Protein backbone atom coordinates (compact mmCIF):
# COMPACT_ATOMS: atom_id res chain seq x y z
CA UNK A 1 0.00 0.00 0.00
CA UNK A 2 1.29 3.48 -0.87
CA UNK A 3 2.45 5.72 1.91
CA UNK A 4 0.07 8.57 2.69
CA UNK A 5 2.95 10.93 2.03
CA UNK A 6 6.70 10.86 1.55
CA UNK A 7 9.21 13.65 1.79
CA UNK A 8 12.45 12.71 -0.01
CA UNK A 9 15.39 15.01 0.72
CA UNK A 10 13.19 18.07 0.69
CA UNK A 11 14.98 21.38 1.18
CA UNK A 12 13.42 24.82 1.39
CA UNK A 13 15.44 27.86 2.29
CA UNK A 14 14.49 31.35 3.36
CA UNK A 15 16.76 34.16 4.51
CA UNK A 16 17.99 33.00 7.89
CA UNK A 17 16.29 29.59 7.83
CA UNK A 18 16.72 26.26 6.11
CA UNK A 19 14.29 23.36 6.23
CA UNK A 20 15.78 19.98 5.58
CA UNK A 21 16.99 17.86 4.08
CA UNK A 22 13.67 16.46 5.21
CA UNK A 23 12.91 12.77 4.98
CA UNK A 24 9.59 11.80 6.44
CA UNK A 25 6.79 9.43 5.58
CA UNK A 26 3.42 8.44 6.94
CA UNK A 27 1.63 5.13 6.72
CA UNK A 28 -2.08 5.19 5.86
CA UNK A 29 -4.27 5.17 8.93
CA UNK A 30 -1.59 6.65 11.19
CA UNK A 31 -1.65 9.92 13.07
CA UNK A 32 1.67 11.71 13.11
CA UNK A 33 2.14 14.70 15.33
CA UNK A 34 4.88 17.14 14.39
CA UNK A 35 5.95 19.01 17.48
CA UNK A 36 8.34 21.91 17.73
CA UNK A 37 8.75 25.44 18.95
CA UNK A 38 7.76 28.49 16.94
CA UNK A 39 9.94 28.89 13.87
CA UNK A 40 11.01 25.23 13.86
CA UNK A 41 9.71 24.52 10.35
CA UNK A 42 6.36 22.86 11.04
CA UNK A 43 4.28 25.15 8.87
CA UNK A 44 6.93 25.26 6.13
CA UNK A 45 6.92 21.44 6.02
CA UNK A 46 3.19 21.18 5.62
CA UNK A 47 2.98 24.08 3.15
CA UNK A 48 5.53 22.31 0.94
CA UNK A 49 3.34 19.23 1.01
CA UNK A 50 0.09 21.00 0.00
CA UNK A 51 1.83 23.01 -2.71
CA UNK A 52 1.75 26.47 -1.18
CA UNK A 53 5.55 26.46 -1.23
CA UNK A 54 7.75 24.92 -3.89
CA UNK A 55 10.75 23.18 -2.33
CA UNK A 56 14.17 24.20 -3.61
CA UNK A 57 15.00 20.53 -4.07
CA UNK A 58 13.70 17.09 -3.23
CA UNK A 59 10.41 15.43 -3.92
CA UNK A 60 7.14 15.00 -2.12
CA UNK A 61 4.64 12.28 -2.93
CA UNK A 62 1.06 11.87 -1.78
CA UNK A 63 -0.28 8.32 -2.05
CA UNK A 64 2.47 7.62 -4.57
CA UNK A 65 1.80 10.65 -6.78
CA UNK A 66 4.17 13.63 -6.93
CA UNK A 67 2.59 16.82 -5.58
CA UNK A 68 2.71 18.52 -8.97
CA UNK A 69 0.69 21.75 -8.90
CA UNK A 70 -0.19 21.42 -12.56
CA UNK A 71 -1.47 17.86 -12.18
CA UNK A 72 -3.54 18.42 -9.07
CA UNK A 73 -5.44 15.11 -8.90
CA UNK A 74 -3.36 14.15 -5.82
CA UNK A 75 -5.27 16.86 -3.92
CA UNK A 76 -8.46 14.78 -4.15
CA UNK A 77 -7.03 12.62 -1.37
CA UNK A 78 -6.24 15.41 1.05
CA UNK A 79 -8.04 17.79 3.32
CA UNK A 80 -6.04 20.75 4.56
CA UNK A 81 -6.57 23.17 7.41
CA UNK A 82 -3.79 25.74 7.53
CA UNK A 83 -2.78 28.36 10.02
CA UNK A 84 -4.36 30.92 7.69
CA UNK A 85 -7.95 30.32 6.60
CA UNK A 86 -8.71 31.56 3.11
CA UNK A 87 -12.07 31.86 1.43
CA UNK A 88 -14.00 34.06 -0.92
CA UNK A 89 -14.43 36.70 1.77
CA UNK A 90 -17.60 38.39 0.49
CA UNK A 91 -19.37 35.05 0.19
CA UNK A 92 -21.03 33.34 3.12
CA UNK A 93 -20.06 29.92 4.42
CA UNK A 94 -22.67 28.11 2.37
CA UNK A 95 -21.58 29.78 -0.88
CA UNK A 96 -17.95 28.92 -0.16
CA UNK A 97 -18.82 25.30 0.59
CA UNK A 98 -20.94 25.04 -2.58
CA UNK A 99 -18.03 26.40 -4.59
CA UNK A 100 -15.57 23.92 -3.08
CA UNK A 101 -17.95 20.99 -3.50
CA UNK A 102 -17.60 21.26 -7.29
CA UNK A 103 -13.99 20.14 -7.11
CA UNK A 104 -14.53 16.93 -5.10
CA UNK A 105 -16.46 13.94 -6.48
CA UNK A 106 -16.67 12.53 -2.93
CA UNK A 107 -18.13 15.68 -1.44
CA UNK A 108 -21.14 15.11 0.79
CA UNK A 109 -23.51 18.01 1.38
CA UNK A 110 -25.11 16.02 4.20
CA UNK A 111 -21.79 15.61 5.92
CA UNK A 112 -20.95 19.29 5.47
CA UNK A 113 -24.32 20.34 6.88
CA UNK A 114 -24.00 17.90 9.77
CA UNK A 115 -20.52 19.15 10.66
CA UNK A 116 -21.59 22.77 10.42
CA UNK A 117 -24.51 22.00 12.75
CA UNK A 118 -22.22 20.18 15.15
CA UNK A 119 -19.86 23.13 15.24
CA UNK A 120 -22.75 25.61 15.45
CA UNK A 121 -21.24 27.34 12.46
CA UNK A 122 -23.40 30.13 10.99
CA UNK A 123 -23.32 29.36 7.26
CA UNK A 124 -25.29 32.47 6.32
CA UNK A 125 -22.58 34.83 7.54
CA UNK A 126 -19.98 36.22 5.15
CA UNK A 127 -16.54 34.73 5.58
CA UNK A 128 -15.01 38.11 6.35
CA UNK A 129 -17.48 38.58 9.22
CA UNK A 130 -16.65 35.25 10.86
CA UNK A 131 -14.64 35.13 14.07
CA UNK A 132 -11.30 33.28 14.13
CA UNK A 133 -12.92 30.26 15.74
CA UNK A 134 -15.64 30.12 13.12
CA UNK A 135 -13.12 30.45 10.31
CA UNK A 136 -11.32 27.43 11.73
CA UNK A 137 -14.61 25.56 11.82
CA UNK A 138 -15.40 26.49 8.22
CA UNK A 139 -11.94 25.29 7.19
CA UNK A 140 -12.52 22.02 9.00
CA UNK A 141 -15.90 21.49 7.37
CA UNK A 142 -14.30 22.21 3.97
CA UNK A 143 -11.52 19.74 4.71
CA UNK A 144 -13.70 16.94 6.09
CA UNK A 145 -16.78 17.06 3.88
CA UNK A 146 -15.17 15.04 1.08
CA UNK A 147 -13.82 12.34 3.45
CA UNK A 148 -10.14 12.69 2.54
CA UNK A 149 -7.71 9.83 3.09
CA UNK A 150 -5.09 12.24 4.40
CA UNK A 151 -5.87 15.13 6.70
CA UNK A 152 -3.27 17.86 7.04
CA UNK A 153 -3.76 20.09 10.03
CA UNK A 154 -1.37 22.95 10.64
CA UNK A 155 -1.94 24.25 14.16
CA UNK A 156 -5.69 24.23 13.54
CA UNK A 157 -6.57 25.29 17.08
CA UNK A 158 -4.14 28.16 17.25
CA UNK A 159 -5.85 31.36 18.33
CA UNK A 160 -9.15 29.80 19.32
CA UNK A 161 -10.69 29.52 22.74
CA UNK A 162 -10.57 26.31 24.82
CA UNK A 163 -14.25 25.46 24.26
CA UNK A 164 -13.90 25.52 20.48
CA UNK A 165 -10.60 23.70 20.75
CA UNK A 166 -12.24 20.84 22.62
CA UNK A 167 -15.04 20.65 20.05
CA UNK A 168 -12.49 20.49 17.23
CA UNK A 169 -10.51 17.75 18.95
CA UNK A 170 -13.67 15.75 19.61
CA UNK A 171 -14.57 15.86 15.93
CA UNK A 172 -11.06 14.85 14.92
CA UNK A 173 -11.18 11.94 17.31
CA UNK A 174 -14.42 10.77 15.75
CA UNK A 175 -12.87 11.13 12.29
CA UNK A 176 -10.07 8.85 13.45
CA UNK A 177 -12.42 6.26 14.84
CA UNK A 178 -14.69 6.10 11.81
CA UNK A 179 -12.15 5.63 9.06
CA UNK A 180 -8.71 4.48 8.05
CA UNK A 181 -7.49 8.00 7.68
CA UNK A 182 -3.98 9.31 8.02
CA UNK A 183 -3.55 12.58 9.85
CA UNK A 184 -0.52 14.83 9.84
CA UNK A 185 -0.90 17.32 12.64
CA UNK A 186 1.47 20.12 13.56
CA UNK A 187 1.21 21.91 16.84
CA UNK A 188 3.06 23.40 19.71
CA UNK A 189 0.13 22.71 22.03
CA UNK A 190 1.25 19.44 23.54
CA UNK A 191 -1.92 18.17 25.27
CA UNK A 192 -3.67 18.05 21.85
CA UNK A 193 -1.12 15.83 20.30
CA UNK A 194 -0.89 13.48 23.22
CA UNK A 195 -4.55 12.65 22.75
CA UNK A 196 -4.52 12.14 18.99
CA UNK A 197 -1.14 10.96 17.83
CA UNK A 198 0.19 7.46 17.22
CA UNK A 199 3.67 8.73 16.36
CA UNK A 200 5.45 11.90 17.31
CA UNK A 201 8.16 13.72 15.39
CA UNK A 202 10.17 16.49 16.97
CA UNK A 203 11.44 19.30 14.80
CA UNK A 204 13.61 22.30 15.49
CA UNK A 205 15.76 24.56 13.32
CA UNK A 206 14.41 22.87 10.22
CA UNK A 207 15.54 19.39 11.21
CA UNK A 208 13.60 16.43 12.55
CA UNK A 209 15.52 15.12 15.53
CA UNK A 210 13.36 12.24 16.51
CA UNK A 211 10.43 10.25 15.28
CA UNK A 212 9.01 7.64 17.61
CA UNK A 213 5.75 5.91 18.47
CA UNK A 214 4.02 7.68 21.33
CA UNK A 215 3.81 4.42 23.27
CA UNK A 216 7.58 4.04 23.10
CA UNK A 217 8.00 7.36 24.84
CA UNK A 218 5.47 6.35 27.48
CA UNK A 219 7.32 3.08 28.06
CA UNK A 220 10.87 4.40 28.11
CA UNK A 221 10.73 7.73 29.87
CA UNK A 222 10.45 7.97 33.67
CA UNK A 223 11.04 10.32 36.52
CA UNK A 224 13.21 8.49 39.04
CA UNK A 225 13.95 9.49 42.60
CA UNK A 226 16.60 7.79 44.72
CA UNK A 227 19.09 8.26 47.47
CA UNK A 228 22.78 7.86 46.72
CA UNK A 229 25.87 9.23 48.39
CA UNK A 230 28.81 10.36 46.32
CA UNK A 231 29.73 13.17 43.98
CA UNK A 232 30.04 13.40 40.20
CA UNK A 233 28.41 10.17 39.26
CA UNK A 234 27.61 10.00 35.53
CA UNK A 235 24.20 8.45 35.09
CA UNK A 236 23.22 6.84 31.81
CA UNK A 237 20.27 7.96 29.69
CA UNK A 238 19.67 10.95 31.93
CA UNK A 239 18.33 14.20 30.48
CA UNK A 240 17.73 16.10 33.69
CA UNK A 241 19.23 15.78 37.15
CA UNK A 242 18.42 17.53 40.41
CA UNK A 243 20.17 16.86 43.65
CA UNK A 244 19.65 17.91 47.24
CA UNK A 245 22.24 16.38 49.53
CA UNK A 246 22.08 12.66 48.80
CA UNK A 247 18.55 12.83 47.38
CA UNK A 248 18.38 12.76 43.59
CA UNK A 249 15.64 13.28 41.04
CA UNK A 250 16.44 12.41 37.45
CA UNK A 251 14.51 12.18 34.22
CA UNK A 252 15.55 9.17 32.20
CA UNK A 253 14.93 8.56 28.52
CA UNK A 254 15.47 4.83 29.05
CA UNK A 255 14.51 3.94 32.58
CA UNK A 256 15.53 0.27 32.39
CA UNK A 257 19.15 1.23 31.70
CA UNK A 258 19.09 3.85 34.44
CA UNK A 259 17.48 1.50 36.98
CA UNK A 260 20.04 -1.18 36.18
CA UNK A 261 22.86 1.30 36.76
CA UNK A 262 21.32 2.53 40.02
CA UNK A 263 21.06 -1.06 41.21
CA UNK A 264 24.76 -1.59 40.53
CA UNK A 265 25.63 1.64 42.32
CA UNK A 266 23.62 0.58 45.37
CA UNK A 267 21.10 3.42 45.26
CA UNK A 268 18.37 3.34 47.87
CA UNK A 269 14.67 4.30 47.91
CA UNK A 270 14.52 4.04 44.16
CA UNK A 271 11.12 5.02 42.83
CA UNK A 272 10.10 5.61 39.24
CA UNK A 273 7.05 7.50 37.98
CA UNK A 274 5.51 7.60 34.55
CA UNK A 275 5.56 10.92 32.73
CA UNK A 276 2.90 12.48 30.56
CA UNK A 277 3.60 12.97 26.88
CA UNK A 278 3.60 16.70 27.47
CA UNK A 279 6.33 16.41 30.10
CA UNK A 280 8.40 14.16 27.83
CA UNK A 281 7.98 16.48 24.87
CA UNK A 282 9.09 19.47 26.92
CA UNK A 283 12.26 17.62 27.94
CA UNK A 284 12.99 16.64 24.35
CA UNK A 285 12.42 20.12 23.02
CA UNK A 286 14.45 21.73 25.80
CA UNK A 287 17.26 19.27 25.51
CA UNK A 288 17.65 19.32 21.75
CA UNK A 289 19.30 16.78 19.46
CA UNK A 290 21.39 15.18 22.17
CA UNK A 291 18.34 14.32 24.21
CA UNK A 292 16.40 13.17 21.18
CA UNK A 293 19.09 10.74 20.14
CA UNK A 294 19.84 9.52 23.68
Amino acid at each position, binding site marked *: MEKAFQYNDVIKTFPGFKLGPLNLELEPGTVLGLVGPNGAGKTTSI*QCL*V*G*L*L*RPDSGEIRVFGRPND*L*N*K*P*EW*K*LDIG*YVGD*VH*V*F*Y*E*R*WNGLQNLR*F*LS*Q*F*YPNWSDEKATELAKRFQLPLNKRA*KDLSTGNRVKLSLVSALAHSPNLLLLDEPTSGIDPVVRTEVLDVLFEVLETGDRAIFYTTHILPEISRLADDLAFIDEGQIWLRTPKEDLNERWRKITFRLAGENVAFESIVNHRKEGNDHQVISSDFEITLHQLQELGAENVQDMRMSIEEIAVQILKGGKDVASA
Partner: protein
Amino acid sequence: MWRLLKAEIAYNKNFLIIAYGIAVPTLIFSFIWEGGIYQKGNFNTPIIVIFHQMIFMTVLFPIILGVTIDRRSSKRAMFHALLIHPVRSLGIIYLSLPLFFWFSIVFLFWLIYPIVHEGNVEFPLIWQTLSITGLMFVLASGPLFYDLNHCLKGKAAKLILNFLGPFLYVVLVLFYYAAIIPLLGNFSPINTMMIEFSSSSLGSILFFCTGSILAALGIIIVGRRKSYVE
Protein backbone atom coordinates in the same frame (compact mmCIF):
# COMPACT_ATOMS: atom_id res chain seq x y z
CA MET B 1 -10.83 26.31 -15.49
CA TRP B 2 -14.44 27.15 -16.25
CA ARG B 3 -15.56 26.38 -12.71
CA LEU B 4 -13.11 28.89 -11.34
CA LEU B 5 -13.89 31.45 -14.04
CA LYS B 6 -17.62 31.14 -13.32
CA ALA B 7 -16.91 31.61 -9.64
CA GLU B 8 -14.79 34.70 -10.30
CA ILE B 9 -17.54 36.23 -12.42
CA ALA B 10 -20.14 35.44 -9.76
CA TYR B 11 -17.89 36.78 -7.02
CA ASN B 12 -17.20 40.05 -8.89
CA LYS B 13 -20.73 40.34 -10.25
CA ASN B 14 -21.45 43.60 -8.43
CA PHE B 15 -18.28 45.27 -9.71
CA LEU B 16 -19.09 44.20 -13.25
CA ILE B 17 -22.64 45.48 -13.00
CA ILE B 18 -21.37 48.86 -11.78
CA ALA B 19 -18.67 48.98 -14.46
CA TYR B 20 -21.08 48.20 -17.30
CA GLY B 21 -23.71 50.40 -15.69
CA ILE B 22 -21.35 53.36 -16.01
CA ALA B 23 -19.58 52.40 -19.22
CA VAL B 24 -22.47 51.64 -21.56
CA PRO B 25 -24.54 54.79 -20.87
CA THR B 26 -21.36 56.88 -21.03
CA LEU B 27 -20.47 55.40 -24.37
CA ILE B 28 -23.92 56.11 -25.77
CA PHE B 29 -23.92 59.62 -24.30
CA SER B 30 -20.50 60.36 -25.77
CA PHE B 31 -21.80 59.57 -29.23
CA ILE B 32 -24.78 61.83 -28.70
CA TRP B 33 -22.59 64.62 -27.31
CA GLU B 34 -19.43 64.56 -29.39
CA GLY B 35 -19.86 61.79 -31.91
CA GLY B 36 -17.68 59.58 -29.80
CA ILE B 37 -14.41 61.41 -30.37
CA TYR B 38 -12.32 64.03 -28.58
CA GLN B 39 -10.00 66.47 -30.26
CA LYS B 40 -6.46 66.66 -28.94
CA GLY B 41 -4.17 68.90 -30.98
CA ASN B 42 -4.30 67.67 -34.56
CA PHE B 43 -5.71 64.34 -33.54
CA ASN B 44 -9.07 62.93 -32.73
CA THR B 45 -9.04 60.37 -30.01
CA PRO B 46 -11.90 58.17 -29.03
CA ILE B 47 -13.45 60.03 -26.08
CA ILE B 48 -14.98 56.88 -24.84
CA VAL B 49 -11.56 55.32 -24.64
CA ILE B 50 -10.48 57.96 -22.17
CA PHE B 51 -13.63 57.63 -20.13
CA HIS B 52 -13.30 53.91 -20.03
CA GLN B 53 -9.74 54.02 -19.00
CA MET B 54 -10.93 56.06 -16.08
CA ILE B 55 -13.64 53.54 -15.35
CA PHE B 56 -11.14 50.78 -15.72
CA MET B 57 -8.74 52.50 -13.38
CA THR B 58 -11.26 53.36 -10.74
CA VAL B 59 -13.40 50.23 -10.82
CA LEU B 60 -11.50 47.29 -12.16
CA PHE B 61 -7.98 48.35 -11.40
CA PRO B 62 -8.55 47.91 -7.65
CA ILE B 63 -9.80 44.41 -8.40
CA ILE B 64 -6.78 43.62 -10.51
CA LEU B 65 -4.38 45.18 -8.07
CA GLY B 66 -6.34 43.93 -5.10
CA VAL B 67 -3.54 41.52 -4.67
CA THR B 68 -1.27 44.39 -3.65
CA ILE B 69 -3.78 46.65 -1.94
CA ASP B 70 -6.15 44.48 0.03
CA ARG B 71 -4.54 41.85 2.23
CA ARG B 72 -7.55 39.61 2.05
CA SER B 73 -7.68 39.82 -1.73
CA SER B 74 -3.99 39.03 -1.79
CA LYS B 75 -4.84 35.71 -0.16
CA ARG B 76 -6.94 34.77 -3.15
CA ALA B 77 -3.94 33.31 -4.97
CA MET B 78 -3.30 31.22 -1.86
CA PHE B 79 -6.95 30.10 -1.90
CA HIS B 80 -6.81 29.22 -5.59
CA ALA B 81 -3.47 27.43 -5.31
CA LEU B 82 -5.09 25.02 -2.84
CA LEU B 83 -7.88 24.09 -5.24
CA ILE B 84 -7.86 21.04 -7.49
CA HIS B 85 -6.94 23.15 -10.44
CA PRO B 86 -3.66 23.58 -12.38
CA VAL B 87 -1.93 26.72 -11.16
CA ARG B 88 -0.68 27.53 -14.65
CA SER B 89 -4.18 28.55 -15.70
CA LEU B 90 -4.70 30.98 -12.81
CA GLY B 91 -3.02 33.76 -14.78
CA ILE B 92 -5.50 33.44 -17.65
CA ILE B 93 -8.40 33.57 -15.23
CA TYR B 94 -7.09 36.65 -13.45
CA LEU B 95 -6.62 38.53 -16.74
CA SER B 96 -9.80 37.42 -18.40
CA LEU B 97 -12.27 39.52 -16.40
CA PRO B 98 -10.73 42.97 -16.88
CA LEU B 99 -9.81 42.23 -20.50
CA PHE B 100 -13.25 40.87 -21.30
CA PHE B 101 -14.70 44.12 -19.95
CA TRP B 102 -12.33 46.17 -22.08
CA PHE B 103 -12.90 44.22 -25.28
CA SER B 104 -16.65 44.31 -24.88
CA ILE B 105 -16.62 48.13 -24.55
CA VAL B 106 -14.27 48.51 -27.52
CA PHE B 107 -16.46 46.19 -29.55
CA LEU B 108 -19.51 48.28 -28.68
CA PHE B 109 -17.67 51.49 -29.63
CA TRP B 110 -16.67 50.14 -33.01
CA LEU B 111 -20.16 48.80 -33.57
CA ILE B 112 -21.70 52.23 -33.08
CA TYR B 113 -18.98 54.49 -34.53
CA PRO B 114 -19.33 53.56 -38.23
CA ILE B 115 -23.10 53.93 -37.95
CA VAL B 116 -22.88 57.41 -36.38
CA HIS B 117 -20.16 58.54 -38.81
CA GLU B 118 -21.85 56.96 -41.85
CA GLY B 119 -19.01 54.56 -42.49
CA ASN B 120 -16.24 57.21 -42.36
CA VAL B 121 -13.55 55.72 -40.18
CA GLU B 122 -10.35 57.63 -39.38
CA PHE B 123 -7.43 55.23 -39.40
CA PRO B 124 -5.60 56.98 -36.54
CA LEU B 125 -8.56 56.07 -34.34
CA ILE B 126 -8.04 52.41 -35.17
CA TRP B 127 -4.35 52.68 -34.33
CA GLN B 128 -5.18 54.47 -31.11
CA THR B 129 -7.62 51.76 -30.13
CA LEU B 130 -4.91 49.17 -30.73
CA SER B 131 -2.43 51.24 -28.71
CA ILE B 132 -4.81 51.68 -25.83
CA THR B 133 -5.64 47.98 -25.91
CA GLY B 134 -1.93 47.38 -25.45
CA LEU B 135 -2.01 49.81 -22.57
CA MET B 136 -4.93 47.91 -21.07
CA PHE B 137 -2.87 44.72 -21.30
CA VAL B 138 -0.09 46.50 -19.43
CA LEU B 139 -2.45 47.71 -16.72
CA ALA B 140 -4.13 44.32 -16.40
CA SER B 141 -0.80 42.60 -15.94
CA GLY B 142 -0.01 44.85 -12.98
CA PRO B 143 0.10 41.91 -10.57
CA LEU B 144 3.05 40.62 -12.61
CA PHE B 145 5.38 42.70 -10.47
CA TYR B 146 3.83 41.32 -7.32
CA ASP B 147 4.00 37.73 -8.59
CA LEU B 148 7.62 38.20 -9.67
CA ASN B 149 8.43 38.89 -6.04
CA HIS B 150 7.38 35.32 -5.32
CA CYS B 151 9.69 33.99 -8.01
CA LEU B 152 12.87 35.91 -7.43
CA LYS B 153 15.35 35.64 -4.64
CA GLY B 154 17.57 38.42 -3.47
CA LYS B 155 16.83 41.72 -1.84
CA ALA B 156 18.17 43.76 -4.75
CA ALA B 157 15.85 42.11 -7.26
CA LYS B 158 12.88 42.63 -5.00
CA LEU B 159 13.83 46.23 -4.36
CA ILE B 160 13.99 46.93 -8.09
CA LEU B 161 10.64 45.27 -8.67
CA ASN B 162 8.91 46.94 -5.76
CA PHE B 163 10.17 50.30 -6.97
CA LEU B 164 10.17 49.83 -10.73
CA GLY B 165 6.71 48.37 -11.13
CA PRO B 166 4.77 51.05 -9.28
CA PHE B 167 7.01 53.75 -10.83
CA LEU B 168 6.21 52.62 -14.37
CA TYR B 169 2.53 52.59 -13.61
CA VAL B 170 2.59 56.06 -12.12
CA VAL B 171 4.45 57.30 -15.21
CA LEU B 172 1.87 55.72 -17.52
CA VAL B 173 -1.00 57.23 -15.60
CA LEU B 174 0.63 60.68 -15.53
CA PHE B 175 1.42 60.71 -19.25
CA TYR B 176 -1.91 59.46 -20.39
CA TYR B 177 -4.15 61.48 -18.16
CA ALA B 178 -2.18 64.71 -18.39
CA ALA B 179 -4.60 65.95 -21.04
CA ILE B 180 -7.62 65.79 -18.83
CA ILE B 181 -6.40 66.28 -15.29
CA PRO B 182 -5.50 69.97 -14.78
CA LEU B 183 -3.03 69.23 -11.99
CA LEU B 184 -0.94 67.20 -14.42
CA GLY B 185 -0.76 70.03 -16.97
CA ASN B 186 3.05 70.08 -16.96
CA PHE B 187 3.06 66.62 -18.51
CA SER B 188 0.72 67.72 -21.30
CA PRO B 189 3.36 68.05 -24.06
CA ILE B 190 4.49 64.50 -23.36
CA ASN B 191 0.87 63.44 -23.39
CA THR B 192 0.44 65.00 -26.83
CA MET B 193 3.54 63.15 -28.04
CA MET B 194 2.09 59.93 -26.68
CA ILE B 195 -1.17 60.45 -28.55
CA GLU B 196 0.66 61.27 -31.79
CA PHE B 197 2.81 58.15 -31.50
CA SER B 198 -0.07 55.93 -30.51
CA SER B 199 -2.03 57.18 -33.56
CA SER B 200 0.54 55.75 -35.93
CA SER B 201 0.68 52.15 -37.17
CA LEU B 202 4.20 51.69 -35.78
CA GLY B 203 3.25 53.13 -32.41
CA SER B 204 0.15 50.99 -32.13
CA ILE B 205 2.03 47.81 -33.00
CA LEU B 206 4.66 48.69 -30.40
CA PHE B 207 2.09 49.44 -27.71
CA PHE B 208 0.10 46.33 -28.51
CA CYS B 209 3.12 44.04 -28.62
CA THR B 210 4.51 45.45 -25.35
CA GLY B 211 1.18 44.95 -23.67
CA SER B 212 0.77 41.46 -25.08
CA ILE B 213 4.24 40.42 -23.96
CA LEU B 214 3.65 41.72 -20.44
CA ALA B 215 0.26 40.04 -20.29
CA ALA B 216 1.75 36.73 -21.47
CA LEU B 217 4.52 37.09 -18.90
CA GLY B 218 1.95 37.82 -16.22
CA ILE B 219 0.04 34.66 -17.11
CA ILE B 220 3.16 32.50 -17.02
CA ILE B 221 4.58 33.99 -13.83
CA VAL B 222 1.49 33.25 -11.72
CA GLY B 223 1.94 29.55 -12.39
CA ARG B 224 5.67 29.64 -11.66
CA ARG B 225 5.56 31.29 -8.26
CA LYS B 226 7.74 29.65 -5.63
CA SER B 227 5.26 30.60 -2.96
CA TYR B 228 1.52 31.17 -2.78
CA VAL B 229 1.71 32.09 0.86
CA GLU B 230 0.92 35.72 1.63
